[in-house]
């Protein structure tokens, strides 16, 4: 029981740190609330989907911006970033979403340098939040494995 408590506390602390650092926002809470008996793996599924999509998008962005720097297809960049923005805001990855917004100003201005910088930031933030979310899920699994219930925040 002790270990469950400890894990639960750890989970709560960790999750609230994610909120505190602005990595996640209320939307993540919404997602969590959508998970119920009929859909017990909902959060995990959504987030996994997010990872898959994001990595594809990051790859596409990198291709668009690095392969032919003379003729960057900004429309494609726009499509990718827009999608990235939509998916990140859907799961509440706040910081990723914010970078998408500034990314947009860069490609609107056809500022390649800015775009590259934004892409780098986007990667950084994405992998950061991915890392954190994976940690979070691991914690969840541990809690479940220890026979505990995942605490509900908010």
């Amino acid at each position: 029981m002790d270990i469950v408590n400890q894990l639960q506390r750890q989970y709560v602390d960790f999750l609230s740190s994610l909120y505190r650092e602005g990595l996640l926002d209320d939307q993540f809470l919404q997602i969590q609330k959508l998970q119920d008996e009929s859909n017990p793996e909902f959060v995990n599924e959504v987030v996994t989907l997010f990872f898959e999509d994001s990595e594809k998008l990051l790859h596409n962005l990198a291709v668009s911006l690095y392969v032919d720097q003379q003729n960057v297809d900004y429309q494609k960049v726009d499509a990718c970033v827009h999608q990235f923005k939509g998916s990140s805001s859907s799961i509440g990855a706040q910081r990723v979403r914010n970078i998408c917004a500034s990314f947009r100003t860069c490609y609107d201005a056809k500022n390649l340098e800015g775009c590259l910088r934004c892409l780098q930031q986007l990667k950084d933030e994405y992998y950061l939040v991915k890392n954190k979310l994976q940690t979070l899920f691991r914690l969840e699994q541990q809690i479940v494995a220890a026979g505990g219930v995942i605490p509900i925040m908010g």
Partner: protein
Amino acid sequence: MDCEMENDHSEEMDLEVLSSMWPEDINEEGKLFNLEKPGADHDMLEGVKLKEEPAAVDFNRLVDLTTYSEKGSSQLSNLVKSWEYKQANAVRMLREELDSLSKQQKKVELKKLEMIEEHRFEEHKYGGNKRPVSVLDEVYDIWQEVPRRRNDVVVHDQRPEVEAEYGTVIFWKQRAIHLQKLLEASMQREQIALEKLQESIQNLERQSSPVEELSQVLRRADNYLHFVLQNAPVVIGHQDNELRYRFIYNHFPTLGEQEIIGKTDLEIFGGGGVKESQDFKREVLERGVAAKREITFETELFGSKTFLIYVEPVFSKAGETIGVNYMGMDVTDQVRKREKMAQLREEIAVQKAKETELNKSIHITEETMRAKQMLATMSHEIRSPLAGVVSMAEILSTSKLDKEQRQLLSVMLSSGDLVLQLINDILDLSKVESGVMRLEATKFRPREVVKHVLQTAAASLQKILTLEGQITDDVPVEVIGDVLRIRQILTNLISNAIKFTHEGKVGIKLYVIQDPCACKQGESPNVTYTDEQTAPAKGSIDHNVLSTSKSRSNQKDYNGKSHGEVPCQNHGHNDETGNPLQNGASTNGDREEYPPHETTVWIRCDVYDTGIGIPEKALPTLFNKYMQAGADTARKYGGTGLGLAICKQLVELMGGQLTVSSIEHHGSIFTFILPYKVSTICDSSDDPDELRDMIGHDAANDMNDDDTNYGFFKFEPRTLGPIFSASGPGRSQMLRPNGFGLSAINTRIGYPQDSSSFPSGNNTPKEICLIEDACSEVDVTETSPEPESSLMHSPECNNKISIGKEHAKHDDENIQLKISSINTCNSSQRPKDVLDMTKIRDPQVMHQMQPMSGRSSECTSNDSRDIPKAKSKPKILLVEDTRINVMVARSMMKQLGHEIVVVNNGVEAVRAIHSTNYDIVFMDLYMPVMGGLEATRLIRSFEETGNWEAAIKAGVEFDVSPSNSFTNGQEYKLSRKRIPIIAMTANALSESADECYASGMDSFISKPVTLNNLRQCFEQYLAAFL
């Protein structure tokens, strides 16, 4: 000064000119009077022609002054001193010259001696080789101190040059001759020196007249003074200690000398300012301190002029003031300019203030705009979801519930109502405060308003209280005002009164007052409350007034359904018009007949109760926002504390005033007076339908002799019997199995206590109950869905009454009523809309209601109290390309109980609409292949034209399978109705909402989608399925 003189005496001697003899230090302060030294004949003033001296002088006085006044004597002594000094200087110079001459003489003598000695030396040459040393060589040095010029005169020692050989006779002869010459020359010089001396002495004598010199200097100074003052607007004068003029200089004299000298100001001229200046001078004279003052003269002599006057006292040597020096300068122009400047400055200040004011009002306007926006936001953001909650709870309340659930639900509903009320209150308040509140002027009948307010209150009454209303005869039948607001005020005050009254009665009294000030007449609450049981005198009504009564165009609005109008019957009445009712004593005075032709009438309204009253100390803050009489009150009675604040603001907005008087534990009277316009065309024609308006015919039959009580309503508590509560306007009643019923209109007869005592002469039953047993469904649905907040005509009371005895049927209708209420609730957020709907003017609403009614009839036929569940689920289409968003949205929809169909881009969306009938579409804007805006445009185009040409043109290919073509055809017929399309946008702000609307979208929700967003949308657009 002396030493200065000494130092440059040589200079002066060179010039042989005396410096100005004008005292250089005429008074202690320093040189104030600097005069140019008159150079050789270039007197500047020579060319200037001075006018005749404008000064008038009393010379005797001048002498007196110079003799006796300190200043005069000091000036004189200065002059003398300076003259003496100059003389001394001259003497000294002469003496020096004499010295030098005598020295020359000595020298010459010495020379002589020397020559003689030389001779002796010649003789002694042989005898001794001694050479004599002239001691005087050193002495000569002193000559160096003698002015150089003197040196010219000095005879140089010249060695006689003798060519002849020394020692010869010739030599000596020559030498003698030479010496002789030298001697002669010396003599000659001596002679010249003597002459010069003589001349100097003579000169001295010639110059030695100090008076002459002084007067010359003085004249020069005088000339300068005149020159300077020639055109100056200056008056200079001296007045003695009786303030008689002794001297005056005025360049523009208007009076002759004899008219001024020896007279005082007052004696010379009169007019404004003269006395003041005289007093001022006297003051200076007395205080002995110089002073300046600006005085405006208003004299016949020189008109209106402002002078700056400087007055200084003149002291005698003994220190007594012996007069004043006075100097005045005409500063009229300056004063005028100054005043103009001040005026200008003032204007500028005013301008600036105006500017600030304008800025402020601009600011306020901006604030108001913002407030408006906030109001809109609030009403939308708070009220609509809340309305949803409350509506749902209402529906829930009609379903089968056990007792506990019902209880919980009732708490939920009342809390919901409270929050709604609070929001409405806040909105009202902020509307009033931000000036957004607009008053409407509509014709209304005060009697009806009072009656309906009481009815409404009675209907939801949960206490044993008597509600009564009295309207005096002089109150016009119809007045013009904002009836909604007036009802709001009345309802608020009445519900307040009821809240704080546990037994006794609560009432409204309306009467005309003549003057808004008169309403302040002290009222004695004691009278009111102690007399409450006494039967009021018979209400009497003027014949004129009688005939005017009729229901308020019931037939028009409500298909002739009766509304429990108090019928007015013509019949006899007491001659006494000002019939005192319970507190008639206090109102008698106010009840003057008001001239009927007046266009504005002040009506006073008292809302009285026999409740707990208000402690005196709470009275001052009673009308403050969020203020209740005390913390206990708030705990015990609840409420927002805004009601009275709103009432007060509303009353004041309408130009009236709201006051309160109260005695603790006895009751309170809230009084408001308001001006109303009286419609000039007094609609006094008898309404033919009026008789049909009668309800409660039993009562009418019993009491028909008493129809005069048109101006009096009474709602007495009923302690038994079935209630109308089932369909009552208040939800609480619905939930309450056995509420108190009120006889309401049935017992509307004013004086039930002793009704029998009324003459029953007019027995003919003129009241006919026209109430059908059942109201048509439409009628029921017409009723306002929000009884608490609705102040309008409330026919449900009547319906209630009429159907009161038929419970079975009634219940069904009740359900119907509820449903329709909810429906209207959902479809409109604004109270105004609600109002409109209650009037059923809006065909759309009608349209919306019809199916509901239909559905509910089904239910009634099943005789089930269950709320009809929405059997058909809405078909929802989500157009979204991002998988995650789809997933989230789907999950959320699922939680809300909806299944969705998902397509991934605009083209697919168009195809989906093409093949299936959806009830709502959620559309992402930004998608590959085709965006949401374009897809929306295509769909709208189809709805308008009935064909998909635009879509086909845009490149959308439709499957032409047989099944599809079938649905397509069906659609063609069925679904030309507009599908609600909701945009889902990632940045609600930057992606312009206009664009969404322009493309034909109905609304938009911002991403990320949340449960609340979705729910709200469903409430708004899928109300039919909820």
